[in-house]
């Protein structure tokens, strides 16, 4: 498995796990199941954990194949990234439009903010998922 594919897997799984927990926590705040300040601390902690997990895992993988990690992306890897970004952008647009529609459901800026974040996170998840699919199945 190439460094880029490993990188896509790392990002896909870490986004899925950490932001899954993040939005579960956000929903608990919304439901009043957790005190707002404590919920905020958990959210910030999860975001910090996400950054840390990404850095540690990427450095670990890069140390196994330093030359590959430092090499610029070749044409196939660039094509995979472009195609995945195109799909993710369409997902992001749908998410953004849904965010606009949210204005008719809630006046809460916090909820709308979480919705926008969900759209961005979901688009990123799609991007890495599509990259993995192209890396494995061919482009």
């Amino acid at each position, binding site marked *: 498995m*190439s460094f*880029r*594919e490993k990188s896509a897997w790392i990002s896909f799984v870490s986004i899925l796990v950490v932001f899954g927990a993040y939005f579960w926590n956000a929903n608990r705040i919304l439901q009043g199941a957790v005190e707002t300040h404590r919920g905020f601390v958990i959210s910030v902690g999860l975001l910090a954990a996400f950054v840390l997990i990404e850095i540690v895992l990427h450095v670990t993988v890069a140390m196994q194949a330093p030359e*590959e990690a430092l*090499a610029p992306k*070749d*044409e*196939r*890897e660039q094509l995979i990234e472009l195609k995945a970004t195109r799909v993710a952008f369409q997902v992001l647009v749908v998410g953004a439009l849904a965010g606009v529609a949210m204005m008719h459901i809630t006046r809460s800026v916090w909820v709308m903010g979480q919705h926008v974040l969900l759209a961005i996170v979901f688009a990123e998840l799609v991007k890495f998922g599509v990259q993995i699919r192209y*890396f494995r*199945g*061919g*482009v």
Partner: protein
Amino acid sequence: MGDCAIQNHIRRLRFDHGEMTQQALADEIGVTRQTVNAIELGKYSPSLEVAFRIAAVFGVPLDEVFRYGDRPIDSAGASWRRRTRRA
């Protein structure tokens, strides 16, 4: 690229060149080993530039490395025109 009609003889050419490894070929043409593997397996059609570089490494003309499958090019073109008309 599931219906890719481009076939190649890179595996045989590597064998003929002293069992050249995919990594060695990749280093020569400036791509990753995984990309060479994807090209060999028909999972990726390289750019013209990379295709010419591969041919140059083996010292053969391009059409000794790549071949446009068994379908005549005209029928493939007709199939593409049908698809684009539908879209």
